């Protein structure tokens, strides 16, 4: 009897779980099975035990069949529901079952600065040839179960991510690998110290060059929250997890332009989950992860002990792999061979003895490989325009100019003091050297690049030559209208209505009474920020694409291209600010609200590389960014670590990286390659933050003050270093370059 009861309970559990995963009892007639189950259960005293057993057996078979069918037809949204199920395993289960022993660091259970983020020093051991070999790792990950009431659903607060960073540093000091477990629907979107975005950016920035192997594995990978601990040498993913740029509900609300308070139709959410390409297979195909760890049918639950064994094996193997690759390719091949051999003998439990300690050289190789890994990431989303030969040609071109700058800066640098006076002569001499060296290449180069255009001049672009109303300099086209507008501060500060031609002409879009900045088009900045005719755009041909083939998005992209006359939301160019040469990466609002996708990321990285090569300061001017372009899914998300890596390498090489925010800057970019800058400034009346008011309201249930994201509050929180008046942008920028860049403007 006891046995039967147990089986009945189990059946009920399984049925409930199926309908939970499928989001409905209607799926696969689960409800009718459930009815039959109820009939059987209610008849428990009416029929004989044997008969009962048969009936139960039939039900069990039926359910197993249902489960298999359910597994076969798992949709994106089903996976989201699996991951969200309270039955799913969580970090605590892994700590208990994968590792031998562990000590939680930086708090215990509820008594923690942020219980949604767990850090633990753990030991993991493998049996190798009958001997137990134990090694230490730092486990860092989100926890949403085992005390749900204080885990905040696995949404880490900025201080939780800071804790993670702190213990990553400990791991670095101790030279032990990091195992990062990602179980988060996203970071808790508060701006309190130092702000969700700032902390994520700091984490990614640190992880790009953290000198220990980092292995990450995703169960629930919610965008920025995932990246905060996800920048790693080896990226695994559980087969039933999801990794996404945004929650399907959030995505559907944005794409479907659903107003707040309105219910989002379930079909929309379902189809959005499909479009976002959030499954493990999708991610493997997009190369945003390296391997999938298989889970049992319909996902692993807390009692999936076999599965935990598998996880242990995979984590050790991944760590071994990363470590071995730093030694030599041969060592790694050897390992693979040995592993395959012993697997034949011992099955999945097989392990090879690999010490996880790295020496200096190996560390350098580790970082180099990490760098290459992220450099290549997200490239699936870009169409390299031109043929292979074209690409070769541009590589040749890059190489030769690299050579020139190497001579100019590196070679001369050591002699600089003595040869300062004859610097001119030397530079012209080095030009001769280049001619000799690059001469043969140049003719090849010319041949290949005949069809390529010379760097496009921005000046001739749209709207820029428009009729000038009052002044000789550029006047915003907004000024060509005889009407007035109200300053938003008029009620409080008594600002008079502003006449539009004055406002957008002479006042530079600034209320003359209170200094409120009205938004101006990005062209205004091109004209007022940089020296006349100094702008030379590069990579203007790189085209924003629709790598996930999101339906309708192709059309929307075309509209944006037609509207702006540009091919992506990022403009990269060389320019001068009062004679100082800079490389600029600029995100602007007109093109898909300044969102960042693979093309924008690639353009940014190339701009950073160019700045590094030419020893010039790098300026990110953010006219507006709405975050990562959600239609590119995780390809977009990986732009965060990818671009941050580029910044880190540029800065480590001695570069000066300045970020200036304007209008609205939110989400992914702010939480990575913008927010990681040491020198961030904002233009007055701009807003900077991680998530907008609506998302905050949805996730935290709290209304935020209207000025929550204001530049002034960002300054108070220590996110930015200063607020600039638009009319003094040029002066301030020049001053910043001079004071922070030092003599060489490339500050080391």
């Amino acid at each position: 009897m006891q046995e039967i009861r147990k089986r009945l309970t189990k059946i009920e559990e399984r049925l409930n779980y199926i309908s939970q995963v499928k989001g409905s009892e209607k799926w696969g007639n689960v409800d009718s099975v459930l009815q039959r189950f109820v009939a059987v259960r209610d008849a428990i005293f009416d029929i004989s035990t044997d008969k009962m057993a048969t009936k139960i057996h039939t039900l069990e078979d039926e359910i197993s069949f249902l489960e298999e069918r359910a597994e076969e037809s798992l949709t994106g949204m089903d996976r989201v529901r699996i991951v969200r199920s309270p039955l799913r395993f969580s970090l605590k289960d892994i700590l208990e079952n994968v590792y031998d022993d562990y000590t939680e660091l930086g708090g215990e259970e509820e008594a923690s600065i942020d219980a949604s983020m767990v850090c633990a020093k753990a030991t993991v051991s493998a049996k190798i040839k009958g001997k137990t070999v134990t090694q230490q790792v730092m486990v860092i990950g989100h926890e949403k179960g085992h005390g749900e009431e204080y885990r905040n659903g696995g949404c880490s607060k900025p201080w939780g991510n800071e804790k993670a960073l702190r213990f990553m540093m400990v791991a670095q000091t101790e030279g032990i690998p990091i195992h990062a477990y990602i179980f988060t629907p996203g970071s808790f979107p508060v701006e309190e110290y130092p702000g969700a975005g700032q902390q994520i950016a700091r984490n990614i920035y640190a992880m790009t060059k953290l000198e220990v192997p980092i292995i990450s594995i995703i169960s629930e990978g919610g965008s920025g929250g995932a990246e905060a601990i996800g920048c790693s040498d080896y990226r695994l993913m559980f087969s039933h997890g999801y990794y996404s740029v945004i929650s399907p509900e959030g995505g559907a609300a944005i794409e479907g332009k659903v107003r707040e308070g309105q219910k989002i139709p379930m079909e929309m959410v379902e189809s959005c989950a499909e479009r976002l390409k959030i499954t493990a297979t999708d991610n493997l195909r997009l190369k945003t992860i390296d391997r999938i760890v298989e889970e049992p049918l319909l996902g692993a639950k807390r009692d999936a002990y076999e599965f935990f064994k598998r996880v242990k094996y995979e984590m050790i193997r991944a760590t071994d792999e990363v470590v071995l690759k730093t030694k030599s390719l041969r060592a790694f091949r050897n390992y693979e061979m040995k592993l395959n051999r012993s697997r034949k003998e011992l099955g999945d439990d097989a392990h090879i003895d690999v010490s996880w300690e790295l020496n200096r050289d190996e560390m350098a190789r580790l970082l180099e490989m990490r760098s290459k890994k992220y450099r290549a990431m997200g490239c699936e989303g870009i169409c390299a325009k031109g043929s292979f030969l074209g690409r070769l040609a541009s590589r040749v071109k890059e190489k030769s100019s690299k050579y020139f700058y190497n001579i100019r800066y590196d070679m001369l640098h050591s002699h600089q003091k003595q040869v300062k006076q004859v610097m001119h002569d030397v530079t012209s001499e080095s030009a001769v050297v280049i001619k000799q060296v690059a001469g043969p290449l140049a003719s090849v180069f010319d041949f290949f690049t005949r069809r390529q255009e010379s760097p496009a001049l921005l000046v001739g672009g749209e709207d820029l030559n428009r009729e000038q109303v009052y002044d000789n300099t550029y006047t915003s086209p907004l000024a060509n209208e005889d009407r007035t507008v109200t300053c938003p501060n008029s009620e409080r500060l008594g600002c008079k209505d502003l006449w539009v031609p004055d406002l957008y002409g002479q006042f530079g879009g600034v209320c003359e009474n209170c200094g409120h900045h009205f938004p101006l088009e990005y062209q205004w900045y091109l004209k007022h920020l940089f020296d006349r005719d100094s702008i030379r755009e590069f990579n203007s041909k790189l085209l924003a694409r629709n790598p996930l083939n999101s339906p309708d998005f192709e059309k929307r992209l075309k509209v944006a291209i037609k509207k702006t006359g540009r091919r992506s939301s990022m403009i990269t160019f060389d320019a001068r600010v009062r004679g100082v040469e800079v490389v600029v990466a600029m995100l602007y609002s007109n093109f898909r609200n300044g969102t960042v996708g693979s093309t924008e990321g690639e353009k940014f990285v190339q701009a950073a590389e160019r700045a590094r090569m030419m020893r010039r300061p790098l300026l990110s001017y953010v006219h507006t960014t709405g975050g990562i372009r959600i239609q590119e899914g995780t390809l977009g998300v990986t732009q965060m670590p990818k671009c941050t890596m580029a910044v880190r390498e540029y800065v480590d090489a001695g570069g000066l990286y300045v970020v200036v925010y304007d209008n609205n800057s939110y989400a992914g970019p702010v939480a990575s390659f913008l927010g990681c800058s040491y020198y961030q400034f904002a233009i007055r009346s701009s807003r900077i933050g991680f998530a907008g008011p609506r998302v905050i309201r949805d996730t935290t249930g709290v209304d935020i003050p209207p000025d929550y994201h204001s530049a002034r509050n960002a300054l108070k929180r220590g996110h930015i270093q200063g607020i600039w008046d638009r009319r003094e942008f040029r002066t301030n920028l020049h001053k910043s370059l001079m004071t922070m860049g030092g003599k060489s403007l490339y500050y080391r």
Partner: protein
Amino acid sequence: MKAKILIANRGEIAIRIAKACEDLGHDFVMIYTDADKDSEHVVRYADQTGKDQKVWRISSYTDPNEILSIADHTSCTAIHPGYGFFSEDFRFARRVTVRDRPLIFIGPKWEVIKDLGDKINTKKVANELGIPTIPGTSAPIYNEMEAESVAEKLLLEQREQGISDPSILVKAAAGGGGMGIEEVHRLEQFRQVYREVKNYAKRQFGDGGVLIETCLRDYNHLEVQLLCSQHGERIHFGTRNCTIQSTGRQKRLEAAPGFDDSCFNYAFDANDVLEKVVDYSLKLAAHVRYDNVGTWEWIVARNGQPYLLEVNTRIQVENDVSARISYYKKKQPNLIREQIRVALGAKIGYSQRKIKFKGACIEFRIVAEDTGRDFAPWIGKITRFDFPKHDWSAVYTQVPSDRHYDIPSDFDPNLALALVWGDNIAQAKERGRAFLEEVFIEGETSAGEPMMTNLQYLAENIDRLLTF
């Protein structure tokens, strides 16, 4: 062509402009704010309603949107800014003339207002034309070394001229209205003061530019009244002297002509200096193609050296002082009328030779104030307001004589302008004294204290006119 002119001003000047419009046969519209509802400039024209409504209530005299809104609604074709408010605001003038429904701005064209409104620019242009300006920098200085050498030179020059206690002024270039100005007597003090002013300017105006110029003490403040048309005609109406000012540098008494040998034993040929400043003024006016009424302000040192101070590109309060010593066809002209005429495109129609200068004129600005306490404004209710009537005097006021009047607290408590003229300065002074004797202004504060005016101060200062 009949124009409809919106008078974008208040008080006595609004009334003067309205009269000029009536004289010329133009229609006009008045504006007022609630605080001014009892002013004569409102009450006098309030009887018409409906299509002919002449007075319109707005929220503020300083909001251009209000003025243009009324101008459009009442189908005005021109705007007269009067003095103060928008009279020298080139942006207002520009907006009025370039908007979709353009109006005539009764004043110089906006480009001229802009160029001459910039004191540094005016000084630069004047120097290029050989017109003397106060010695000093012609552009903002940002460099301490450079500043010091300028200071040294200016102090030395003064000493060479025999000035016993020379000094210079250090001014914030972006400042105005007397803010950020410091006086330096000795070169050793200079650096300290320079840094203070520079930091002040940077903090206050966001620009650390500093101007340095010779500090003139003991001088006369002269004005040249010009009238120019859009057809290149340029004539003047002589000079006036407005040296006597309240502590806040507000003018209280003015007289024309600018100097008179009977008043003081000048160390220079007075007529020669007056001619010189008039010539210089016309020269600059020609250079910038000035096209309306305007006043060129001059400083004349005790030794007779004139310096151009600035140009006021508007009709001034005291314009009538000049008109009352000028005669065209034996009649005193009305400069506001002339201003409207030329702004609407007419030619002046007569030449300088046709203007005969005769006699002298004095203007008193009657203000409710406590001259003994730093000219503090007085506020309260006026219960009696009587002026004598003579054929050698004129009074311009917005204060009614037939009813009680509360002085509005939003503006300066100017009560009236009184002008007296005579065959010579002695007679004008005599008539001025007699006139002031006959003025009766009474009133009381909310606390029941009696009215205070500057009548006595004006009478006491008559003798100081046109002296050093």
